[in-house]
């Protein structure tokens, strides 16, 4: 079974969760996702997610120079994003609880 659909459903929420902890940038977000066990996530998957969150108004970004030289986008969560993150956590826990119940019967 392909994991990508499962991942698609929760990735935005997970990224929002990382950003909710403080201003951060793409590489750091990717690092935290991979540390949490999302090994299949590459930068190619991450940036469209960030772009969607930005367009939806859940995050804002500012450009600044990184310590190594290139321009870097720093992301931080908005009030709307905080609200959506709380909603995501509720829905995720509800889905997990239902799934656990079903799978536990096997």
């Amino acid at each position, binding site marked *: 079974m392909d994991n990508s659909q499962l991942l698609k459903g929760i990735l935005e929420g997970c990224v929002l969760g990382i950003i909710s902890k403080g201003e951060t940038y793409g590489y750091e977000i990717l690092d935290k996702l991979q540390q949490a066990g999302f090994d299949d*996530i*590459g*930068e*190619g998957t991450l*940036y*469209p997610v960030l772009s969607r969150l930005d367009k939806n108004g859940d995050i804002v970004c500012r450009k600044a*120079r990184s310590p190594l030289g290139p321009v870097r986008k720093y992301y931080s969560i908005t009030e709307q994003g905080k609200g959506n993150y709380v909603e995501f956590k509720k829905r995720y826990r509800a889905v997990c609880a239902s799934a656990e119940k079903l799978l536990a019967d096997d």
Partner: protein
Amino acid sequence: MTMNYDGYIGFKKTMNYNAMLADLEPKWREIFVRAQTYANLNGIDRDFANERLGELFDMLVTAQSEDKPVNRITGGNPERFCKELFSDYDLKERFKAFPKKLFYTAFLVLDFALIILVGKCRGFSDIPEQTIPMSGFILGFALSFVFELINIVFITPRMLKSHNIVWWKRTSTLIYSAVLIAFVFADFKYNFVDPLETPAWIVAIVSGSISLVYLLVRSIWRYKNFGTVRNEKGRLEREVYERSTNDGFAEEKILREWSAKYETLSKNGEVTEQSFIETAKKDIERKRKHNYLYYLLFAVLYGAFVIGNTFDPDQTADAITLLLGAVVMGFVYYCIFLMTAKKAFITNDNRKRLIAECEKSGETLPAFVVRKMGLKEKCTS
């Protein structure tokens, strides 16, 4: 290691990635060029692609500095990586970019039509007779597109592993432009294919209408979103970008220029730490006049070129046609002026801004420069 990108960043807020590629090791460079090639081949809008590639570049530089494996960024599948990177460039985004491309093309065609109309007409009665061989434009665009395709598919990948990639990126852009212009003019002269002669006035009206509609819609959109028809978003982004990235004509270059000048002049006893600011102010005024003179000279040369190549000195034109010609040539020159002069004037504006900042801080200019640049070595006498 902090890489120095002075001079690598171009006029617009889009970065000159090609120059930055030289700082990436081959295995990282390959990822970047692959993504860039994917964007080019799939017709992804330049602004959209550059925004995304900028983020990718930052990530590659960081991963390289930490000596991470390549699949840390690509997820192990470079092809899928490229597709995912631009996966949100959907039809809506593509549609958004189309009007801008249409405007640039229409504007270019309008310039040609106006030059022909103004240059060859001796009065309003001549206007219906003037035609433009449209085949030149079609041939030029088609051939330059073929060249670009050959470049992207066959040549650029072979340059990936060599440091010549930077040189080739610049050279190929020049070749692309030269092919386009050469075939347009060559077809005008030699008629390689059916010229498709089209009345110049129709070409001018159609291309002019497209340009006007685009500018009108853009002005309305800007006013609705920013309360002004000026490119506020672009101006603000450029300001932020310049200040945060030390663009080629932003702070760091100017500060270095003043640092070097102060060192030379103070050694010769020509300035003191307190008087250097007056020297810098005089320089700004001198450069301002120099910029205007330079572009006045350019206007004279441009006018001479156009007149010399289009007007027939044996014939006389009526006053209205001459006036129309002057207005049109002036308009075309103004557009060229905008494209090339902005950089010089913006640099000077940045100098003025820094001088004002220095005066507000109460420091001498050399001390201000040292503080801004974070230099350790003494810049003062």
